[in-house]
């Protein structure tokens, strides 16, 4: 039984009833896609097509199509990978950690955030795959599979192998968690389809819902599963980016070899994840008219999380510099001075402005509660987070120990193309999701409207 608070504002506005919720959310699924949707989908497909072309060229001719060189062995590829993985953090954080903390406000946003997570992780995973010189062998040699090569086994010392496990586990758990959440909502769509006499849709969504009947016992089990999965996902939220950060932290490259990386990367990931959730939801709520479900209050709460994580990130940056000075390791000192004033100074200052300074604007309630400024800042944060990874990867590699090997990195069309590929995929997938799947968790939202809408009466 929900208890309504007289102090808190209600999470769902507009005096929605249970029926309204089903109606509002299912409308997108049942109706025809709008022109805007088609246009967006078309653009996504064009981006995807260009990306597929550049990827094919890279696979056909070799990694040399990119701008990498003998000194800078990773650049856009791994930058994009870490960026997408970071974005993929918000979904699980919202659904798992906030579930455990019983933050009800998450209910309106967790579905979309989780979908975003899944797609972002898929986007992320393309980079470690296509960045391999020999993808056709690497995609299975990097797995600890029994093989006919004698006693040949993977190298468990390698952080890249840890990545393989971390990402695949995270992906699997997120997918299962997301899907289980979808089951009751699929059943709602099915039920409505039966009522409307749309047999095809009824059959499809019945299959998708695994024949969900909504019995009390089923609900009981469903909730236990959700809780267990939340418990399982919670450490994963922290572990994935921790392990990703170890790709760098366990190396000897000055600027990478830093013990602060795990917490700093996790904070950064949540930071960018929330920013991406905001970007997407602000569009979704507008396009699908879900203003009553995703309210300013939601936006504000997410912005607060952005201030917190943004500040952690900022402190981490400063700590790195402090340690570089305090540690008295000349190569590391140089690496950090070079970040600020070297050839990639613009990337560094872009990162600092976007990640450290811009989120501080959210201290102002006006900015925090303005949709326009939130939208702009959410994009700024993601630009900043891309530059953070670029700065870490490229500015550390391009001038490491031996000055004779110092060089620059210049991206080519093919570097850009692969990034575009993931955008194309991400938006196409998100649009398909928004069209065919309920973008808001109806079952959960229904559990809070009663209480939160009571005040109105």
């Amino acid at each position, binding site marked *: 039984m929900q208890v309504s608070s007289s102090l808190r504002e209600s999470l769902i506005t507009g005096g929605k009833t249970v029926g309204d919720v089903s109606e509002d959310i299912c409308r997108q699924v049942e109706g025809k896609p709008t022109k805007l949707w088609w246009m967006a989908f078309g653009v996504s497909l064009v981006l995807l097509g260009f990306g597929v072309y550049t990827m094919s060229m890279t696979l056909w*001719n*070799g*990694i*040399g199509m990119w*701008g*990498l*060189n*003998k*000194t800078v*062995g*990773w650049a856009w590829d791994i930058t994009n990978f870490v960026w997408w993985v970071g974005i993929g953090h918000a979904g699980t954080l919202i659904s798992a950690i906030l579930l455990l903390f019983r933050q009800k406000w998450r209910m309106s946003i967790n579905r979309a955030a989780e979908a975003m997570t899944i797609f972002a992780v898929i986007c992320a995973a393309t980079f*470690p795959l296509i*960045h*391999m*010189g*020999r*993808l056709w*062998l*690497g995609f299975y*040699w*990097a797995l600890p599979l029994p093989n006919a090569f004698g006693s*040949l*086994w*993977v*190298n468990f*010392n*390698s*952080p*890249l*192998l840890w990545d*393989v496990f971390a990402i695949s586990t995270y992906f699997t758990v997120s997918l299962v968690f997301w899907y289980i959440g979808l089951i009751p909502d699929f059943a709602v769509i099915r039920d409505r389809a039966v009522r409307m006499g749309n047999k095809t849709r009824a059959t499809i969504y019945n299959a998708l819902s695994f024949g969900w009947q909504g019995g009390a016992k089923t609900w009981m089990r469903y909730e236990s599963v959700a809780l267990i999965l939340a418990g399982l996902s919670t450490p994963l939220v922290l572990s994935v980016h921790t392990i990703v950060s170890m*790709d760098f932290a*366990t*190396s*000897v*490259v000055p600027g990478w070899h830093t013990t602060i990386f795990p917490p700093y990367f996790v904070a950064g990931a949540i930071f960018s994840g929330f920013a991406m959730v905001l970007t997407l939801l602000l569009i979704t709520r507008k396009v699908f008219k879900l203003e009553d479900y995703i309210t300013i209050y939601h936006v504000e709460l997410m912005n607060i999380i952005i201030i917190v994580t943004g500040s952690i990130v900022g402190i981490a940056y400063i700590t790195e510099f402090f340690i570089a000075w305090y540690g*008295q*390791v*000349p*190569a590391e000192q*140089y690496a950090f*001075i*070079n970040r600020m*004033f070297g050839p990639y100074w613009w990337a560094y200052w872009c990162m600092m402005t976007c990640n450290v300074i811009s989120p501080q604007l959210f201290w102002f309630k006006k900015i925090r509660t303005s949709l326009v400024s939130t939208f702009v800042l959410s994009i700024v944060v993601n630009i900043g987070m891309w530059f953070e990874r670029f700065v870490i990867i490229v500015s550390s*590699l391009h*001038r*490491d*120990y*031996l*000055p*004779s*090997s*110092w*060089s*620059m990195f210049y991206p080519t069309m093919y570097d850009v193309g692969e990034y575009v590929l993931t955008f194309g995929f991400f938006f196409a997938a998100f649009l398909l999701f928004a069209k065919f799947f309920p973008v808001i968790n109806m079952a959960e939202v229904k559990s809070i409207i009663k209480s939160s809408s009571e005040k109105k009466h």
Partner: protein
Amino acid sequence: MSITKKTYWKGIQQLKNDPAFVKHADKEFVDLGVENDPRHTRRDFLKMMGFSVAAASLAACEAPIRKAIPFVNKPIDADPSIPNYYASTYVNGGDYCSVVVKTREGRPIKIEGNTLSKVSMGGTNAQVEASVMSLYDNYRLRGPKKGNDNASWEDVDKEITAKLQEVAAANGQIRIVSNTILSPSTKAAIEQFKSQYPTASHVQYDQVSYYGMLKGNEASFGKAFIPSYDFAKAKLIVSVGADFLGTWLSPIEFTKQYSVNRKISEDNRTMSRHFQFETNLTLTGANADYRTMIKPSQQGLVVAQLYNLIAGKAGNATISAGMDKVNYLDKAAEELWANRGKALLVCGSNDKDVQVLVNGINAMLDSYGSTILADKAVNFRQGNDEAMAAFVADAEASRIGAVVFYNCNPVYDHPMGAQLGGALKNISLTVSTSYTEDETASMSAYKTPDHHYLESWNDFEPKANSFSLSQPAITPIFKTRQAQESLLMWAGQKVEYFSFVKNNWKNWYFNQSALGLGFQAFWDKCLYDGVLEVGSESGESFSFAGDVNGASSAVSANYKANNTGFEIALYESYGVGNGSQANNPLLQELPDPITKAVWDHYATISQKDAASLGVDNDAEGRTQYLNIAIGGKSVKLPALVQPGQTPGTIGIALGYGRTKVGKVAENLGQNAYPLIVMANGSLNYSVSTGVTPTFVDEPYQIAQTQIHQTYMGRSNVIQESVLSEFKKDPEAGREFTKITKWEEKVDPGTISMWKGHDYNNHHWGMSIDLNSCTGCGACIVACNVENNVALVGKQEVINRREMHWLRIDRYYSSDAADISDYEALEHASENPEVVFQPMLCQHCNNAPCETVCPVAATTHSTEGLNQMTYNRCIGTRYCANNCPYKVRRFNWFKYHDNQQFYEVNPSMNTDLGRMVLNPDVTVRSRGVMEKCSFCVQRIQSGKLTAKREKRKLKDGDVVTACQASCTSGAIVFGDMNDSESQISKLLQITRDEKRPNSSDKQIGNPRAYRVLEEIGVKPNIFYLTKIKNKDVTNA
């Protein structure tokens, strides 16, 4: 209804009741056909069809066999996978090197120095190492040609002989033009030709002339000769413009000698001191202890001033010429005088008057008989500038009836090449024996290609009484013919050149030899050794009798102390040399030791001039052009800002701008030979008047393999000091980094997560002496050839993707006062000190690459090698990122069998080029990482040989390619577990009693350090500190 009885006939035969038809009327098949023909049964048909189908499908299934024809009778000494070695001799114009050729299955695949030679002493240089690839040059002539048409030898011989006779009959002049010929038998062949055609004479010229020196010596001693020098005996070396470690006279020999006095140790705390006065920053200048920048127009005056300074000390009369304020010249004079008898002055000038003064100084310093061996004259560089100029004039005036260009290319590499080229059509018979269709050959009527030297028989006398032989290491690939055989043929003698040489040796040297063998045994020994020394030095003494005052006034007239205009100093490129091997991509992709540029031709200018001309040459090699007008001529070249370049001068390399050379080098750069002019009777390699560079604002990018110039004051990379400090403390210059623990500071090696390895068999290690390394780059080419390293071309070098496993890092000093002033540290000084550091896989004991590979493609061997398993590699490049030394190379593209790299990497893209590949080393596929393997194929081969011979591996059984090529002996490789090995002794390795074979060995040599000691990766390569023989530290 009428029933009509119809009759249907089977045919007209039935109607007619043909008996033949009636006979078979009851048979269904009347045709007699195959069935009844006893020769073709149905079974035959089925058999044949079965066979045809099977044969057709079998033929379709099987890949065509391409040119792999097994031996019916295996040649005695060609065993698959067993290499054979043949002593031979590399000669290219005046360059000489006695070599050992490694062949596999009948194909030469590697050249190494011949240690038995007293001249080249086992040394090589980049051009010698690369020459094996010229053998498989696609641009080689396949056979004789008349005009542009292929012809047969018979026809060509017939026509040439007829024309020669015609010219001789008309009393027309016949010339044989060549570079310096070192071969006594070739000279004999030419003599025979001359005796057949009395109007014939032989003209020798050199791409880089030493004629002024010959004349200077003639004026000084009454004999035109070039003496031998012995830098090993020189404790004090002064060079005025002579790049004796790089290109001057006999650089391999000089490098070998020079390195003797640059090797120092705790027990031998002395080394030679070297002053260099020069215009361009040369390899020699980069190795000098004191270097002064002078202009070409000052060169004569600097020598004159030195003469005066020395004469003053010797109490001799001074001369009128001279100049003041030459940095370090007084000091050089003082020390020359103090070291007389063990001092040496060399000068790169081709001006006879300057050389007279140089001889005068050397005479006062008692150098003759000690550091200069005048009685051991060298035969390189006998070219006569005046004779050649006269020849060109004769040709232009149509006074020549016939000319044979013997393996030379004057149309390209002589200053008057253009005139000569124009005049060739006036000559009724023009023949070129060049093995490629070069500029001269393509303008000659007949191309009668000679063999490549690896296919030839020949003999050489590089120095008086020092002989060597060259022998074919492969059957001629094409229908070429030994040029000497051609000459003899045209002179009416049909002899095999092999028997000609052998006979000559029987007549000439066999009797002089003290070996006491029969002739065949003598000959076999000479062939086996490749070299022969006979007789002894003449002991002839030379006393200086030059007219120094005459020389002085000529010098005063020809040189200026304060020339304000721009000057040009021409130099030979270290890679392509004089241009004759320009089509060799190994040399094009060899980074210039100083500029680190590849595949490019440029004008080097000083930092000051760059600012005044407006040239902006950034770190990435992006620059603009200079249009350099010299009198009536002009060249347009991209400008390269070169620290150490004398302000007001422009350095331009010879050897570029070839037009008929094959795809590799065609139209690369500008030809600088036409800029050379005759001055004072010999060719002058500088231009001091009328030089006006103008800035052309067109962008250009020069490909350089190193784009950062300084080592940023990082003493964990380069550890250097000066001799005076070293004398006090052999650990001078060493940096002992400490790691801070809670309460103490400890050595980085003592803290480790790893337990270390136990190498119970061998523990391979390497030591590189930064003090001996001259930076020449021979090791880079040797490594490329040995390990089938792909060449990638200019654009990929600009993309910073060269594949070299071994590189030489070249660092300039900077003027920064403080090592935290990063901005100032990045900029090289105006006249920097230079350090060379060969950098290759360090084979770390705690290799950072090994831990990060997800598929364990790079692992540690039980002998301390960091080994790379190409076919396991999936190409994540994590290992390369995590390599602190950045020595790992990724195959960004497929470099073999790929049209994109056809021109720059022929050894992996053409059938002919592929023959040079080392069959012991895999050609790497795209997408995998590669790096130095410590020549693991050589290690394996050494171990197998030892095993077959049932003995333990000895030190010296395994020699890496870089070590073998290192003329100065800077690289020492060996087993650090073997306490008797050279490396153990050099590094003074002491073993821990508890873990004698542990990877952690105690290194006793105070000079030995590991690069980046503090990160604890524990390399198996040690560097010995660089010690400059300077009086004070340049702190």
